[in-house]
């Protein structure tokens, strides 16, 4: 590929002067190749690194049993999100024992779905500073569903949230709701 410049062109007649031969090699292909490889390495390095999402769980509480039945939290200051199977998502703002299927609202993972519900609930909250999102995944939900909901926490800037085991009474309502909604 590299070509040596041919400088001894016109030597017909006249004095032929021994011209000094230039040894300049054409560097263009070399530079091309270099940049091509750079591009390749740049793309492969930057995109192979995954992101991480922090998740802090509350430390185990030795007095858990004692604290369990003291819901001093104002219901309007919290929203419970129930992650169902089949990529379904529900939310309610009731006490878990008094929840009925009418008060469990179905929503979706789309932009207009849970995100708006969280923001609207926060607007309604009496003390928005204390607004808490309680995430309750059911056994049918997948890890992706959970990550998506945690992602919504990040997007809606809800700094107070927790992942909590779903209560049996809520499971019953969820099953009733998901059973009825699949019939429709």
């Amino acid at each position, binding site marked *: 590929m590299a070509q040596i410049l041919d400088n001894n062109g016109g030597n017909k007649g006249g004095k032929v002067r021994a011209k000094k031969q230039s040894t300049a090699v054409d560097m263009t292909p070399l530079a091309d190749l270099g940049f091509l490889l750079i591009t390749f390495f740049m793309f492969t390095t930057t995109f192979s690194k995954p992101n991480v999402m922090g998740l802090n769980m509350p430390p185990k509480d030795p007095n858990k049993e004692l604290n369990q039945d003291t819901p001093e939290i104002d219901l309007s200051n919290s929203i419970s999100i129930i992650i169902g199977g089949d990529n379904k998502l529900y939310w309610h703002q009731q006490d878990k024992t008094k929840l009925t299927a009418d008060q469990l609202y179905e929503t979706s993972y789309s932009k207009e779905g849970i995100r708006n519900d969280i923001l609207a609930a926060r607007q309604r909250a009496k003390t928005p500073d204390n607004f808490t999102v309680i995430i309750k995944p059911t056994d049918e939900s*997948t*890890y992706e569903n959970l990550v998506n909901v945690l992602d919504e926490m990040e997007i809606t800037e809800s700094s107070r949230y927790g992942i909590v085991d779903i209560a049996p009474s809520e499971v019953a309502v969820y099953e009733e709701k998901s059973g009825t909604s699949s019939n429709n």
Partner: protein
Amino acid sequence: MARVKPKRQGIHMDMTAMSDMAWLLLTFFILTTQFKKPDIVPVTTPSSVAETKIQDGDLIRITINNEGKYYFSIIDDKNKLPVLEKMGKKYGLTFTDAEKSSFLKLSEIPVPVRSLKQYLNLSDGQKQSTIPGIPMDSTDLQLIDWVDFSFEHDPNLKLAIKGDVNTQYPEFRDLIKQLVERDFNRFQLVTSSESKPK
């Protein structure tokens, strides 16, 4: 007398400098790239808007695949052998040097510790086909032992959890529960990136 025709001369630029720079940058990228060890289990991570990049150094990772099997990885090579030794001590196993060097090449520990010795002696082809996962249930908490010994060796480690898109939530919950039980409360969930909606 024949006239000397002026030869048409193209515009010539000296590319030497440019190519020098290109190769210099290339060398830099090659040297800084860390090639990923081949993953033993294929895992598709869910995407999130999280912007923190994973820090490879002081990291241990638990992988849950779509069948709910657990795998354990120590990312930093310097932590691998001490943890393996602690683990061997607890389960009464000693490893030969050949097995240790084979262990260093593993990106994930895919078998229960008792079959680890046997697994390390398998050829590369066979390694692909035997991936039963590390047990983590009420009778056998080997996975948690791995985590425990890693933290015992280096308390500054960070614990990452890499789950598959189709991992069922109970598998994840059980893992978290067991970890919280041993006072590991801070996790990093490995996700692929996604742009943040405005």
